[in-house]
Structure formats: structure tokens, C-alpha cells
């Protein structure tokens, strides 16, 4: 840092010439390092490819008895909402006016563009989970619920559906599909559109959001934020009985 700029070019050349002895050795070390980096790149490519075709693949069976969300490059879904939109979830402690209201029908797509529908019909209790790819609470909740499903199996008497909403390439962990496949997520998942119309139709204002729907297709209970697995079991029970969890 002591050389004057005006003398730099000739000085640098002289410095290189003066310290040029042993150049052949350093050349071999450089070649060795280059070969090592190329070898690391090849191994990484192999590991990455086998990971993509293995644990990260969609559509395979899982311990939960469900099927991992399918592969597909869809980043935003396309959907059709019919019926009355639920009002926005109220602040904690306030009365939820959506309770007793039938959920709208949302006909949309999953990650491989196959059709999936959320509807008040079917005569089966439901729990709808609404997650956002960038939301750290969702990133924490999804593996917890998946662990529960892997341990306890997919419930027979409660239909589980998820909505991947608030999708945007301006935020982390986009798109949602690879993230959910990485978590081996087996809950059938509807991919929301660019306007998050599916999330809005269910009045979701916080993530992760949970909508408990009775066998009659009407809202029993809504909540948002991370929950424990004891609370998760209470949500399933609320769907079965049509009664909101006690203490809610």
C-alpha cells in the first residue's frame, strides 16, 4: 500500500518478475486447487440431483399414509371462488362472525396443475390450513404437523386440506412447492393465485391460519399463529364434534 500510483504499473511488473521464481510449483498448486473445485462441483451436482429425485420428490407415499405434494413448476395457481366469502378473522378475543357460516367453494390447482377443490359439501368435517412460504411460523408449523401425521396417520374422519397462499417471488422460500416437498408434506394443497383470492375467501389474516369446518360445511372455529400438537388435536376434535375448542 506504500507505492505511489504513478509508479505502479512498472513497479508491479518488476515485483512479479522478482518474485517469479517457483512459478511452476505455484502453477501446479493452482491446477490442483482447480481440479479439486471441479470435483466438488461434480459431487455437489450428483448429490443435488439424487436429492431432487429422492427425498425431495413429490407424489411418493409417506409414513402418514398420505402422498407428498406433487412435483410441478407452478408458482401461482388459478382458481374460481363461488359462494359467500367469509369475513376477515377478528382480533383475538373478539367474536368471530364467520362461525356458523358455510365456507365458499374454491376450485383450484395443486402444484402439478391437477384440480383440487375446497367445498362445504361432502358431509365430512374438515380442517383447512393456510400457510405462506415466507412465513417463519409456517416454516416451523409445517414439519411439526407432518411429524404428527407421520406418527398418527392421516385422520379418516376429518378431511385435511392446505392452501399455499400469499405467494410472491419477492419473498423468501419461493415458490411454495419445493418447500412443502422438502418437508414431505402430505396434506393435499391448493396453490393460491397471485391475488391470494383463496386465502381472502376464507378471511385469513394471519399465518398459519386454521379453519375448522363441521360436517355441515359451516365454520366451527378459526384461529391463526403457531399451535402445539395438543391444540392441533383439539382442532381435529372440534371438527368432529362441531363445537369450538373449550377456552377459545
Amino acid at each position, binding site marked *: *500500500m506504500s507505492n505511489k500510483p504513478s509508479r505502479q504499473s512498472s513497479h508491479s511488473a518488476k515485483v512479479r518478475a522478482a*518474485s517469479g521464481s517457483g512459478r511452476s510449483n505455484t502453477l501446479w*498448486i493452482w491446477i490442483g486447487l482447480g481440479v479439486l473445485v471441479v470435483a466438488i462441483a461434480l459431487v455437489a*451436482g450428483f448429490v443435488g440431483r439424487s436429492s431432487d429425485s429422492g427425498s425431495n420428490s413429490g407424489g411418493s407415499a409417506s409414513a402418514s399414509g398420505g402422498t407428498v405434494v406433487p412435483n410441478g413448476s407452478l408458482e401461482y395457481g388459478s382458481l374460481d371462488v363461488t359462494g359467500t366469502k367469509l369475513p376477515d378473522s377478528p382480533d383475538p378475543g373478539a367474536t368471530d362472525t364467520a362461525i356458523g357460516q358455510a365456507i365458499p367453494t374454491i376450485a383450484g390447482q395443486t402444484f402439478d396443475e391437477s384440480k383440487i377443490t375446497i367445498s362445504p359439501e361432502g358431509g365430512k368435517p374438515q380442517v383447512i390450513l393456510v400457510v405462506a412460504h415466507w412465513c417463519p411460523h409456517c416454516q416451523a408449523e409445517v414439519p411439526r404437523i407432518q411429524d404428527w401425521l407421520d406418527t398418527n396417520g392421516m385422520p379418516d374422519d376429518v378431511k385435511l386440506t392446505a392452501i399455499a397462499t400469499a405467494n410472491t417471488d419477492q419473498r423468501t422460500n419461493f415458490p411454495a412447492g419445493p418447500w412443502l416437498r422438502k418437508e414431505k408434506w402430505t396434506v393435499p394443497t391448493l396453490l393460491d393465485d397471485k391475488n391470494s383470492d383463496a386465502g381472502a375467501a376464507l378471511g385469513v389474516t394471519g399465518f398459519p391460519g386454521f379453519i375448522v369446518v363441521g360436517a355441515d360445511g359451516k365454520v366451527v372455529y378459526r384461529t391463526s399463529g403457531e399451535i402445539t400438537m395438543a391444540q392441533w388435536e383439539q382442532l381435529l376434535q372440534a371438527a368432529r364434534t362441531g363445537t369450538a375448542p373449550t377456552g377459545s
Partner: protein
Amino acid sequence: MRDLLPLKTMSVFFAVLALLCWAIAISLVVGALVRRARHGRPGRLEPLRDDIGRMALPLAWAIALVTTLGSLYYSKVWSFVPCELCWYQRIAIYPFAVILGIAAWRRDAGIRVYAIPVFAIGMVIAVYHTWIQAYPPSSGTSFCTVEAPCTTRYVWEFGFVSLPFMALSAMVAMTVLLLVARPAPRRSAIEE
């Protein structure tokens, strides 16, 4: 771009490079300790030490450059939002993608006087960030926000390699390389 440079492949690549940084740093430190134990008497590896001394500046520059490009890869290609701690580490590394290049061209080992204090600050932050990613505090940290959480493991390879661990590895390797970099020959040697 995402198809061309898949996340898993690139993360494994950068994770192994981070481990290579540790291998280089540890080897050089052990070599220096052995030399000290021999009271500076030249050993059989002395020519190798000279070679590495000559290569240290360009190698440190290459590490700064790859670290900078890797950081930009995660934020620009995969839209990972850098948290506050990430930004401090970026500040400690990004400028050296240029500065160490100039120093390597000039063979100016004196750059260590300016660079190592910056890396030292960056390493302290990286150690803390690595720690809270490995063991997230239940109460969170004041650096975390919902938009850019500092405890979310966007990368987690081999059960311990996270993004701040990669930054730490790069800064450790660059620091050690700068310490062993051979200064430019004296002007008298050049004039001869």
C-alpha cells in the same frame, strides 16, 4: 436460472467449499506452529510454504469473490431476504472482492493491516449468527424480524453448515491466508 443452478446442488457445493476453507486455514496454522516449534529452521516443506505465501493473496481474493457471488446467488436467484446479521457479514466481505483483487495484482501483503480487523469484526458476528441458527433461542433475538428472520436455516448441509457458517469459514480462511501472504520483494531486490 433456478433450473441451471439448483438450490440443493449449489448449497452442497458452497458447503464443501466452506469445509475446504477450514482445511486450508487449519493446515496453515498447524504448519506455522510446527515451524515455530522448529525455531524457524527451514524444513522439507519450506518450498511449499513459500509457494503458498506467493499464492495467498490471489487465493484470499478468490474466496472473497466466491463468497460474494454465493451470497448474491441466494438473495437474487432464490430471493432469500438477508437479515440484519447477514448484512453486517456482507459489509465485512463484499468490499474485499475488489480490494483483495487489487492487492493480489500489486502483491501488496500490507493489505492485511486493513483487512484483518474488518474480518475480525465479521467473524464475531458470524460466530454469533452460526450459534443462534444451530441453537435458536426460544425468546428470539433482537436482530430477528418476521420479514427477515435470523434463525431460519435457509441452508443446512451436513447437519451443521449454515449460511453464517459459510461466511465464518471464508473469513477465517482469508484471515489466515493474509497472515501467511508473502510481502512483495524489497525494492532493492527489484532494482537488481
